[in-house]
């Protein structure tokens, strides 16, 4: 499959207060951005369970984005710090599974940063597009 025509499938876990609102802003502001990111709203980036990330990859995601409020701005004080810590350990572990760091991304997008959300989506899509599909486990998953 040529990368030019490859449309990566991306999952975004967005916090309700900042990033989801930011995405909403991008939307209400009629900003166009790559439609590849499929958004799952969570209340806080701290709610993002590493299981969700693995699940997304397992289900066929070529990349996963977690996005929350800027550090210090968390609606729940410091949920985003926990997200950051998990992100760091998880991305290290994902590499052991052969999933490149570039496929797993953490971004701080505030409610006001519709433009940033637009940029993040476009950039991430382009990045993953260049890397190609994940092809997690042809012949490696459930025994046929």
């Amino acid at each position, binding site marked *: 499959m040529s990368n030019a025509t490859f449309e990566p499938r991306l999952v975004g876990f967005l916090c309700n207060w900042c990033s989801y609102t930011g995405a909403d802003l991008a939307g209400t502001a009629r900003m166009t951005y790559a439609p590849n990111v499929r958004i799952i709203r969570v209340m806080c980036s701290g709610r993002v*369970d*590493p*299981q969700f*990330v*693995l*699940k997304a*990859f*397992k289900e066929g995601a070529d990349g996963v984005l977690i996005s929350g409020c800027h*550090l210090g701005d968390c609606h729940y004080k*410091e949920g985003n*710090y*926990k997200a*950051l*810590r*998990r992100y*760091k*350990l*998880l991305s*290290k*572990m994902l590499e*052991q*599974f*052969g*999933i490149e760091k570039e496929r797993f991304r953490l971004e701080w997008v505030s409610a006001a940063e519709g433009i940033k959300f637009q940029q993040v989506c476009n950039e991430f899509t382009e990045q993953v597009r260049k890397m190609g599909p*994940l*092809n*997690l*486990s*042809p*012949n*490696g*998953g*459930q*025994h046929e």
Partner: protein
Amino acid sequence: MSNAKPKVAFYWCASCGGCEESIVDLAEDILKVVAAVDIVFWPVALDFKKKDVEAMPDGSIAVSFINGAIRLSEQEEMVKMLRRKSGLVVAHGSCAHMGGIPGLGNFWNKETIFRRAYHTTPSTDNPDKVVPLEKTVYDGKELTLPSFFDTVYSLDQVIDVDYYLPGCAPPRDLILNAVTAILEGKLPPKGSVLSPNKSECDTCDRNKTKPEKLSIKEIKRTWEIILDPEKCFLAQGVICMGPATRDGCGHRCINGNMPCRGCFGPTDQVYDQGAKFLSALASILDTNDEKEMDRIVQSIVDPAGTFYRFSLPKSLLGRKRMETIK
């Protein structure tokens, strides 16, 4: 009235044999078992052949206890056969349950494992670079070997499993309870893991030594510090899978002053033992400073191998991405 006795089969797949030993370890209790059942198949102990089983009618075996992961085509064939012949299949031990230690092979594939096993280990003397082949013609005759899979599977990834006896190996009382329950027909719903559905901390003596706020500033490996025999391992900075591992093992490791490695697998609510433990561990790291986070994360050696020591085949990702294995 030997006919009235339920028929029982034991089989082992990719395993160390410890689970077989766990049966023997029942000691005098095994006599009760033997008295209560007819063992119709037990390759380790009794001389039954494959054809003996094949000859039995489908469903004639009351229960098959199968241990070990599925690594070879032969094992696949055997367990599929036992499934047909048995009313109940119990995955006996961690390997059958989740893939177990052999399941760590999923970080490689057949090729890399063969290369390692037959070529590059220091003790290997194999100048002709011979590797096992599935088919060989020797003396005009074709010899076959079972095929070796790229991926290791848990039992339930190959056949339908009714119950799981967790543990590496399952402890004696869990086995006895299971056997008793089967004999008495007091069976839990199908698919149950025959151990309590809470994590180990529930019964761990060390749980009460946890500080008010559990947090870790520094990750220590067991050989790096002198372990306090009373204190919670996590509180000492040592990775203990206990919180993410179901109870019932009797704390054999912990009583030996070693942290839990997670052989009992996760609780029912958890999809992925490793991910869940990773989440818990990362959450309690005591820093909001990015550099410090990087440093601590760096100090955790081989997170995947640590968190998925017994459960890799059964995890969400199951194995390492094939195309990245070299």
